């Protein structure tokens, strides 16, 4: 099993601030972050009742599929994907090595504005993810591991989940 992706409270709040500001600056309806395996990390916006879990898994699938296409034509990947609908549009870009940023916007904004604001926010988010990575590495180096809630899980705990 690979090392888990960890999100700490401090960095989560920082990311929330960045995407909240991005949503306002880009006049977007919704902004969210998802990791490449399809796990939602943070979200902000006005779209109520949006199924963000499905959105996250389909976004990851979409990015993985287009990366596959890129490799077929000898590209390393497509760093940006843009989908245009009748009313709402999606702008998808990569942040850090394993994170995907999605911005949903309508006629109140434009692709140019979204692209501009995303560029600025990407730098901020990249440093937050780097800070998480170094925190995880530091804890691993000193041998404490992260404070996993599963360190003391028992078979009874697991049985209870299925009852």
């Amino acid at each position: 099993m690979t090392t888990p992706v960890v999100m700490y409270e401090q960095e989560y709040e920082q990311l929330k601030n960045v995407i909240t500001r991005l949503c306002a600056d880009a006049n977007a309806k919704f902004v969210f972050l998802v990791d490449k395996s399809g796990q939602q990390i943070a979200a902000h916006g006005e779209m109520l009742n949006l199924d963000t879990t499905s959105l996250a898994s389909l976004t990851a699938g979409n990015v993985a599929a287009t990366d596959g296409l890129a490799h077929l034509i000898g590209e390393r990947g497509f760093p940006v994907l843009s989908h245009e609908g009748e009313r709402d549009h999606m702008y998808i870009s990569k942040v850090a090595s394993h994170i995907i940023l999605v911005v949903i916007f309508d006629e109140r904004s434009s692709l140019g504005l979204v692209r501009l604001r995303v560029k600025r926010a990407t730098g901020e988010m990249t440093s937050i993810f780097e800070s998480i990575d170094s925190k995880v590495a530091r804890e691993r180096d000193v041998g404490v591991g992260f404070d996993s809630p599963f360190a003391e899980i028992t078979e009874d705990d697991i049985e209870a989940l299925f009852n």
Partner: protein
Amino acid sequence: MTFINYASREINCKIVYYGPGLGGKTTNLQYIYDSTAAQSKGKLISLATETDRTLFFDFLPLDLGTVRGFKTRFHLYTVPGQVFYDASRKLILKGVDGVVFVADSQRERMDANVESLYNLELNLKQHGYELDKLPYVVQFNKRDLPNIVSYEDLKSELVRNGEPIFESVANRGIGVFETLKAVAKQVLMELRKNSGG
């Protein structure tokens, strides 16, 4: 890849159902979806062809409850079983925490089982995983059909390293939750091991 969110106190894990085409992977997810209370499940997403064959993946998010104050959620995926969808299968294995291999017990599908298992090992390797180091269970599906391979023969062909085996009839739910429970348990125990517990 397990995602531990300390801010929202959630843990998400990814389980992939693998196996030959028409073996019952989607049926497993469909049964889990149909038998789970509304508050514990998300939407079942099926990216399928017009003839209901899986094209890219099926996806079912499942809330199992709370462990030590953390909401524990499993994301269940299936892969398209048909041989020519290999590029898609490879993508879905990215970040996997546990695998269920759904074998078709029918005699005429034995070669397809063997080929799919070989393909699983190959695709995992390309992501840097090894099957015998991942949480992994095998399900022998369609045990109610007349023309099936014996348990012992399936075991000797498909079981590598003493991994748990479950006999199932997925469309009637037999063995479905037992399989899920076994792989989920291995995933959680692996998390314990990796966090020094």
